[in-house]
């Protein structure tokens, strides 16, 4: 097992866009591609499979060139059959492989819910731990340009409800690489949800392989008046809101969940205890969403420190509209976070 030899970063490292001295900066896209290449290099049991992952676009660039380097036997195109191909990946995983199954959109995961929820998530338990499922599923949240109802869903909560799964949502290039490698190294099924709008983000990323374990969030920015707990693309809106709030004399702490299941309860609770105010900014819907879980956590474990009602910033309860006029209003921005924080003062 080459995976035990890789350094794990359990530091809850704060930096985002941290540009170390002389450290190379790469994009979120390239960080993912680098992680995939390194996993393929390190372990012959790793393979990638997904619809069109070997085509010139290479899943928005994240698999570009890999099929040329590693060959079609390790970077495999796939029929359009999400449930079946998830089953195929599970079958490979339970017999010793470490597949990475790649979807262009989160919206295609509902087709494979049976294999993910009923099979991948439960196989270890159902076999009394005798058979593990080291499966990584990557899927991308779409947004904008009329992607509309079936090409822009942010369904992390559906997976975060299911014991046996882990659900990761990297916001930064550093985390994209580390969480993806951590997921491939793990013996359990993990859903890694990326965001299309993050692919061009750049950050200093070490060249060597490293692992970030599930279950650890990070503080992106320290503050004292309000905790903004966010994940994925909403971390950026949260950071922007924090800058804005600073100008208006309010000090916001930004917590990046990174792992939405399991949550880093300790980190969230201690931040809320410190600031006494909680805003949760999620890329998805509200009802039974990640934002509900974080809010519930605060109500359970930090109630006495809450100085104001908890606030959630989520999508409106509607499918995504196609029209640009509606799409624009559909997505919450830093401005809503700012306004919300100011109301809480």
């Amino acid at each position, binding site marked *: 097992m080459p995976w035990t030899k890789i350094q794990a970063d359990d530091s809850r490292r704060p930096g985002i866009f941290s540009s170390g001295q002389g450290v190379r900066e790469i994009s979120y896209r390239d960080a993912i591609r680098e992680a995939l290449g390194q996993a393929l290099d390190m372990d012959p049991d790793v393979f990638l499979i997904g*619809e*069109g992952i070997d*085509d*010139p*676009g290479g899943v928005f660039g994240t698999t570009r060139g890999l099929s040329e380097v590693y060959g079609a036997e390790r970077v495999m*195109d*796939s*029929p*359009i*059959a*999400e*449930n*079946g191909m998830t089953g195929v990946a599970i079958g490979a995983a339970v017999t010793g492989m470490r597949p990475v199954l790649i979807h262009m959109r989160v*919206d*295609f995961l509902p*087709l494979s819910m049976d294999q993910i929820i009923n099979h991948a998530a439960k196989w270890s338990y159902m076999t009394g731990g005798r058979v593990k499922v080291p499966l990584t599923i990557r899927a991308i949240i779409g947004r904008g*340009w*009329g*992607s*509309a*109802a*079936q*090409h822009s869903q942010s369904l992390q909560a559906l997976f975060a409800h299911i014991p046996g799964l882990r659900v990761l949502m990297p916001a930064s290039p550093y985390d994209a690489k580390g969480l993806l490698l951590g997921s491939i190294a793990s013996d359990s099924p993990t859903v890694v949800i990326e965001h299309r709008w993050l692919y061009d983000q750049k950050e200093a990323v070490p060249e060597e392989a490293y692992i970030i374990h599930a279950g650890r969030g990070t503080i992106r920015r320290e503050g004292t008046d309000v905790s903004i707990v966010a994940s994925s693309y909403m971390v950026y809106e949260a950071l922007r809101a924090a800058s804005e709030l600073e100008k208006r004399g309010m000090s916001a702490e930004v917590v990046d969940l990174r792992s939405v299941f399991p949550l880093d309860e300790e980190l969230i609770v201690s931040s809320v205890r410190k600031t006494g105010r909680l805003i949760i900014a999620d890329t998805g819907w509200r009802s039974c969403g990640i934002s509900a879980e974080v809010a519930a956590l605060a109500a359970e474990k930090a109630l006495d420190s809450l100085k104001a009602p908890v606030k959630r910033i989520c999508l*409106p*309860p*509607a*499918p995504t*509209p*196609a*029209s*640009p*006029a*509606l*799409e*624009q*209003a*559909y997505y919450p921005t830093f401005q809503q976070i700012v306004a919300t924080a100011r109301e809480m003062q």
Partner: protein
Amino acid sequence: MTGRINKETLTALFRTMLRIRLFEDRVVSLYPDQEMKCPVHLCIGQEAIAAGVCIHLRKEDYIFSTHRSHGHCIAKGMGLRPLAAELYGRSNGCSRGRGGSMHLADPENGIPGTTAIVGGCIPIAVGAALSARMKKNGRIAVAFFGDGAAEEGTFHEGLNYASLRKLPVIFVCENNFYATNSPLKARQPEVNIADKAAGHGMPGVWGDGNDVMFVHDACKEAVERARAGGGPTLLEFRTYRWKGHVGPDSDIETGCRPAAEYEEWVRRCPVEMFGKRLMKEAVLSQGDIDRLTVSIGAEIDDAMEFARRSPFPQQSEMLDHVY
């Protein structure tokens, strides 16, 4: 060859193909303005199928389609104004701006909706056929889908049920040999898609989808069978899309498909082939075609103009139509 079919029908077929082509050509030319803010999956090169199938359908018959549905909707009777307005995201679009190019609907013309989930429309069309059977209203349903959809479980689940119940539904597979940039041979063993019908106990027919007369004839038989209670049919029409999977550009330059393959299919342009044939058989003259081209062009001018002048949905209406 075309003589057994009357002139009106032949003209209608040609006119539909030309309308689809010219409408989509216009989308290509206007798209760079960045005012149609939604992904467009064009069917340029595949027009014969929409035309040859829908000519047999009544207004109240149902079609269901995919992300690549402009042609089907035009052929089934959707007006160019509501179609254009939908592409422009306006509140008087066929889906009131909520759907965009991938989710066109026009229930009054037998288009209950289209879905961009590959394979999704297949069982839904079967359900519409079940509904027609239960309501005894004599309608039939058509599902349009691509070669990629034949890999989805819903394809087989839909066919199994349609055949079991002998429902009045026709499965129209537009085999353009690609799903996004994946070639068919990377996704399916070498079996005609039409031959998957036998496993479900229904007839399957395949042939040249760029020959509108072939499409017309194959579909005619299927429609007659469906209306007579003879059950479903799977039709596989081989064709080719000229543009990339999505958007107005060709993907040949970017190495997605071999140039020679592309050129071979462009030589076999369905619209041009049929136009020439009609001229050769003196059904239409060059003048007729020119006049048709001009009048359709004017209709498209009007539709695009209408769309651009139309209002956007209000942000206050965000939660309308959810339930």
